[in-house]
């Protein structure tokens, strides 16, 4: 393996490619750094026109603590397990099996239901 054998074009693609991936995501970063500022700014304006003169950023920001709580809950959720879900799957399994391709059993379900209704 000799990188000297690699053509000019390959080097171009390599460098340029990575740069552009960066550029694309930097763009997104920029926009989403801007967006909340715009929101805050317009919210402030609205509040001001409604008569409030003193607005601090704290009033607008939602505490990250809630987030942290959710994150923990999610983590616990994903590492522990849902017994209810297992139960549901088990019941469904018993219920839904057997081929619809030649299924009197299925048919019976449906027909009983039908007889109950009619």
């Amino acid at each position, binding site marked *: 393996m000799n990188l000297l054998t690699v053509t000019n074009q390959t080097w171009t693609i390599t460098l340029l490619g990575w740069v552009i991936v960066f550029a694309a995501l930097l763009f997104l970063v920029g926009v989403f750094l801007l967006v909340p500022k715009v929101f805050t700014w317009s919210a402030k304006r609205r509040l001001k026109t409604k008569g409030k003169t003193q607005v601090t950023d704290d009033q607008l920001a939602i505490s990250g603590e809630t987030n942290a709580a959710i994150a923990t809950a999610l983590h616990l959720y994903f590492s522990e397990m849902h017994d209810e879900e297992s139960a549901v799957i088990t019941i469904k399994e018993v219920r*839904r*099996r057997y081929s*619809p391709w030649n299924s*009197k*059993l299925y*048919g019976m379900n449906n027909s009983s239901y039908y007889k109950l209704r009619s």
Partner: protein
Amino acid sequence: MKKFMTFYFVLAILFCLQIVFGTDISAAVDSASGAEGGVMHGLVALWDFTGFANVTLGNMAMIAVGLFFIFLAVKYDYEPLLLIPIGVGILIGNIPFLPGYKIGVYEEGSVMNYLYFGVKQGIYPPLIFLGIGAMTDFSSLISNPKLMILGAAAQVGIFATFLGASALGFSPEEAGAIGIIGGADGPTAIFLSSKLAPQLMGAIAIAAYSYMALVPVIQPPIMRLLIPKKERAIKMKPPRAVSKTEKILFPLIGLLLTCFISPSALPLLGMLFFGNLLKESGVTERLADTARNSMINIVTILLGLTVGASTQADVFLTLASIKIFGLGALSFMVATAGGLLFARFLNVFLKKDNKINPLIGAAGVSAVPDSARVVQNEGLKTDPNNHLLMHAMAPNVSGVIGSAVAAGIMLSFLL
């Protein structure tokens, strides 16, 4: 009210005249109206286009068949998931139309034709098998493997019908496709006939499904005829419990073994065992659930509808179709008898307390789980405490495997 009835009455008479005497209303009107042009010509052109102008007795007969299928499904609950799509398909396929407007299932570029593609190329049946695999429990078969042989015995129906069809003058390919009706397995029948004899596919599929719906009518007399009452009362030991590992190994071993023997059955058996592995692996419940619900339902709708529509009267109502229906009935009987007799034969080699109840041989024809239920009912008639359902499921599901293997062999020999 009266007025309406009079109006309909006149219309009906005109209509009957046309069918019975072959009067060509449009021609009559055309010559009558002469150069009046405009609206009258438009009306005539449109009349020529309607179903009323193009209907044939064949169409009417097939529409009656379609309505009958739907009636059976709704009233007697015979295989509604199949008979309703097929029945509506027959209606749709037999509404008369002028060719060239991309309406019919056989016209290239029509919507029905695009949906029919999955039938014509044999794509739908493997997807159905995937779903069936994901809903089938092979435990009863794993716990008592020797019952599996009964599923092979009943496939005699396939080969007997193949022989019969050859004798009736069908080409080998056609005979092979007709034979598979004896497999009592819809998707397999469609798959094989789409490859070997596409022109007979409609008749073969309709025959297979009709007789599958009639399993509770066809099998019991044969069972009573061939199995003495004493043997019908044999009680079987409850099957042993099957471990999770065995359940996971079954689809893998089954896939490799059967497909090594009959590689042409790969699309069917590969998918069947794949679906079963999705179910049994315990880690892909999400995929198994989709395979046995939305996926199989979508395919069932499309397959039933287009198979039904493929029975367009001009293609379907032939002497060959009648022969196929006759052979189909025969093959179901032979298959049932084969399973039953082989079960009795098997008992010769089994120890006293290990004997099988020969009735379960009838379940070997597949037609899951209808024939297993028939066995259960017949068993209960002889002894109200003898539950055979669980035991009958073993030959029942192995019958599915057996007929897929047979289909593969037919393909190897005849394609």
